[in-house]
């Protein structure tokens, strides 16, 4: 083997970062990959970090400064007339939206991220209103995780 690929391989091994995000949901021209801490298996009674990599089709990121976004957490599924358990406060991270959510008891929760362009947003950066949802299972010992049947 040439020295060049061998050297590059060694450098790559040292530079491998942690993975970013995992399960994808999409609505029209907007999609997001969600990841929860720790290791996609949220714990009950502890603040859980939630990360959304929100993009338009093609991979152009949607920033919080462009989006009137809200995050709602529902116990179980979303049903008409039933209020959200809590609203997660969103903030802008590097290439992703971040929030912290508290799951009070073991079981399934639905996270709903919805948004629309902020008024006055340049037409080039505009995106359609969207509503994305994921079902997450919180557990005491962290044995839950995401339910992909959303």
């Amino acid at each position: 083997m040439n020295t060049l690929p061998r050297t590059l391989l060694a450098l790559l091994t040292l530079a491998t970062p942690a993975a970013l995000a995992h399960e994808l949901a999409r609505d029209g021209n907007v999609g997001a990959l969600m990841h929860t801490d720790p290791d996609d298996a949220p714990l009950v009674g502890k603040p859980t970090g939630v990360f959304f990599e929100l993009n338009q089709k093609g991979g152009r990121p949607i920033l919080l400064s462009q989006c009137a976004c809200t995050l709602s957490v529902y116990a179980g599924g979303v049903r008409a007339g039933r209020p959200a358990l809590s609203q997660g406060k969103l903030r802008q991270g590097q290439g992703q939206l971040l929030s912290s959510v508290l799951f009070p008891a073991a079981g399934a929760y639905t996270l709903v991220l919805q948004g629309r362009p902020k008024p006055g947003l340049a037409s080039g950066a505009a995106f359609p209103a969207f509503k994305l949802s994921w079902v997450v299972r919180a557990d005491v010992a962290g044995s839950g995780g995401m339910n992909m049947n959303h």
Partner: protein
Amino acid sequence: MTDRPRSVSGWWQVLVALLVPLNLELLLALVTPVGVLAERREELYGFLSLASLLLVLCTRWAGWLRSYRRALGLAAFWYGLYHGWLALQHVLQGDPTNLLFLNQGTQASIWAGIVALAGLLPLTLTSFSGAQRRLGRAWKRLHRLGPWLTLLSALHTAWAGVHFGFVPLKFTSLALLLLSLGLFLWRRRSPASRSPSPLRS
């Protein structure tokens, strides 16, 4: 006198290639939350593919591994293909167009993996003696792509990121697995393990 690598039966190599991931899957099922098991399985086969490719490179220095080279190359392709299929099912939810909703860096990292896997296909299809004879010099040129495809696979892994989780049980399991593998390889390599014991007469 040349130290010829010991030949290992093809069926034995297939058995090992199947048993290694099955054991790792069992370990994964023990330490991984149910909800993320599918995604971790996908990552596991990606790692197995890359590990197989790296072991193919190691055959340059570890002569005793040389007889496994073809099996390792084939295993790398099949593990990689299964990894790709699992990623399509569980990360992209069965719809390849979902790739367009990932950020551009992640899209590029996935394309690197796709190109590496596509590059391994002709190597896999020509990895038998008949093809080697028929292609002659072209076969050697084609198979010189191997290290570059390994590099591309490593780039895909590094770029997409690894997700193992800093859970003590996982690290302990991995450390024990690596230790076991290390001891197994060291024993196979050690001349003392091959020569008869002086205590035995």
